[in-house]
């Protein structure tokens, strides 16, 4: 009878609470520690007790995992020194304990107000992610918000074993406004939201194979997707790297000059663009599957 809580509308804390087993979340460096950004304080910008990222231990279906969620409303979920150090520490703990780690992303990348500190922190986290992967400890990025995964965090998300997306999630490096400024409104009209989502949204990323799952905009669906991936990993091997090289080269050759995302969709086997556009995540997955047959 009532509507549902949409994953993309939830706060970081609500997302974690809704995704993990009830009562299983133990926060690390919780708000009473008051680890707030000295940079923002100096600049006269409001600070937050968690510096825009909630980290901790939890369980999904009884299985242990480390989990982090970024707070997109707080400075765009951007990574500063403390935020980044919490994230690096969490992945390093995951590698040490051989416990899977999931990151619920909502970030535009580096927090400009903290300069290069956030940039370095992102690359330190990448190194920690690959520490996990060397030990076959699964790392999972969840991208399910309009803010999405951009800048350095967009790149970081592609370092994880798996990406779970919803149709609301966006994955990229440069945002539409930056690209519009660079290329002009004719090449990319950032106010054309349909084009923006077809360029960087979950559906296109799923079709191309950059998202491993496309699920309902709902914490239960995200939970289920993470649960399925906890026992899997995507090994970093020469064989896999070569296969990926070939796949990415093929993608570029095939679609490198394709202007309209709809044509990419058609090329990937989507027949009814209008229906696919309106479809929910799982409906889209089904449509894409029948199209490929």
């Amino acid at each position, binding site marked *: *009878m*009532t*509507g*549902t*809580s949409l994953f993309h509308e939830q706060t970081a804390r609500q997302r974690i609470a809704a995704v993990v087993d009830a009562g299983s979340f133990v926060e690390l460096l919780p708000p009473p520690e008051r680890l707030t950004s000295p940079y923002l304080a100096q600049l006269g910008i409001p600070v937050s007790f968690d510096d825009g990222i909630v980290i901790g231990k939890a369980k999904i279906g009884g299985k242990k995992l480390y989990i982090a969620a970024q707070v997109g409303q707080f400075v765009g979920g951007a990574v500063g020194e403390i935020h980044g150090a919490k994230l690096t520490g969490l992945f390093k703990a995951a590698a040490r304990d051989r416990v899977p780690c999931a990151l619920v992303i909502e970030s535009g990348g580096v927090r400009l107000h903290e300069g290069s500190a956030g940039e370095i922190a992102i690359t330190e986290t990448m190194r920690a992610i690959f520490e996990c992967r060397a030990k076959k400890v699964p790392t999972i990025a969840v991208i399910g918000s309009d803010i999405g995964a951009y800048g350095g965090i967009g790149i970081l998300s592609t370092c994880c074993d798996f990406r779970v997306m919803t149709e609301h999630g966006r994955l990229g490096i440069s945002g539409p406004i930056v690209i519009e400024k660079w290329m002009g409104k004719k090449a990319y009209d950032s106010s054309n*939201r*349909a084009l923006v989502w077809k360029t960087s949204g979950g559906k296109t990323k799923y079709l191309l194979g950059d998202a491993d799952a496309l699920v309902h905009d709902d914490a239960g669906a995200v939970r289920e997707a993470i649960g399925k991936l906890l026992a899997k990993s995507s090994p970093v091997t020469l064989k896999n790297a070569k296969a990926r090289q070939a796949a990415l080269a093929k993608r570029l050759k095939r679609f490198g000059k394709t202007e309209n995302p709809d044509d990419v969709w058609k090329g990937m086997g989507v027949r009814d663009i209008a229906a696919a556009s309106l479809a929910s995540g799982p409906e889209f997955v089904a449509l894409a599957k029948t199209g490929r047959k």
Partner: protein
Amino acid sequence: MGTAEIAVRRRNKSERLGRVGRLAQGKFVSSKNVPDLLKRIIEPGDILCLEGDNQKQADFLANQLASLDRKDLHDIHLVMSCITLPAHIQLFKKGMIRQVDFCYAGPQGTAVADLVKAKKFPVGAIHTYNELYARYYIDLTPRVALIAAAKADRKGNLFLAANTEETPAIVEPTAFSDGIVFAQVNEIVDKLPRIDIPADQVDFVVEAPYPMHLQALFTRDPAAITDVQILMAMVALRGIYEKYEVQSLNHGVGFNTAAIELLLPTYGERLGLKGKICKYWMVNPLPTMIPAIESGWIERVFSVGGEVGMERYTAARSDVFSTGRDGSFHSNRAMGQLAGHYAVDMFIGASLQIDVNLPGRKLVVQLVETFQAGRVPTFVEELDAQDPSIKKALHGVAPVMIYGDDVTHIVTEEGIANVGACRSIAERQAAIRAVAGYTPVGLKRKKRETEELRRRGIVQLPEDVGVRPSEATRSLLATQDIKGLVRWSQGLYDPPAQFVDW
């Protein structure tokens, strides 16, 4: 004497038409000849009506008019509903206007305020829509009316499509007193879907080089509805709609009322109110009403105008909406305003334009948050402008005046003040303070006074009407985004591009 005067008007019209010469072929004018034609059919001292309300605008004709010089066009008495376009401002800047009678300044509010300051805005009066339309029949009858229609046929009959709006209210008084009616149309076709204005009442037609300006004014994206607005909507539903069993209503256009519409199939259903309230509506085809319509809440809707993207939906729901023989939506601003004033139990909205001396017992409910964006308090002791009527006209959301007396109830997130039941001005002020939250007005409230008003039911807090604020979350809405509305409509709603992110 009387017959002589009428003969003068008729002769004058034929003189004007005579001056047109080859600028028109019968009724049809090519777009490049429009400026010259306007010069020949408009005379100094004319009452000139420019069609344009908050949705539909005869923008091509307005632009052509604004391209003229003062020597060609001056001493005009402009009558129009909404000053909406930059072209309208140009007419004043060029000094063409001797007097203006209008209703609302809308998006040009700041520009109008500047004109007022520069003493270039000679206001006759600010009207409600119906006052203005009524005066078109009596003392503000246009000599020339520049209007907008969707299509014309080869005879000059006009089809107005979904946005009938105020066209009939302008054409009839003009055509029946020897005025000139000049229509811009999006296209000229052999056969119209239906005739809304007979060719007999139309003097000139131009196929405009671009389609008329049409604002998607009433589309509210559910994604932008806040928890606070949902709380207010719950309070209003229980404390007003349910309490007074409101059957017919005139809904304002805002996120607050959109929240109410989206709560009907969820919260309203849970309260068992379906079939008991909200059956008849005077409101435009609001996309946020789709879930309530689809769940069978709404019997009938009459509208003053259409809404971009709702064409297929309204055509498919002809039991609920007015449709023509061609099967497409029909609206009428003048009749809608009348219905809205005489045929409903309640008006509710954030900014209400209300005729005084309402007939019978009506509820007039002001639905406002105590603070607007940027912490601007909604409640003020007194309006701070020199000319309150202009100030009120310019504001999208007029500040609530503590001394105002049209309103029966004020609903905020803090509760309901039944100001209509107050026995004195002092009591009324205390009631408003009680629901004015932490605004400067609200801070002046006295605990004992509020408690006394609560005891008498004049002030009701959320808990007094059975609303738990912790329940007020977006998950209560029937849908949380535009895409959800499309799904509710079974694909019949085509939202404008700026609302589409899929």
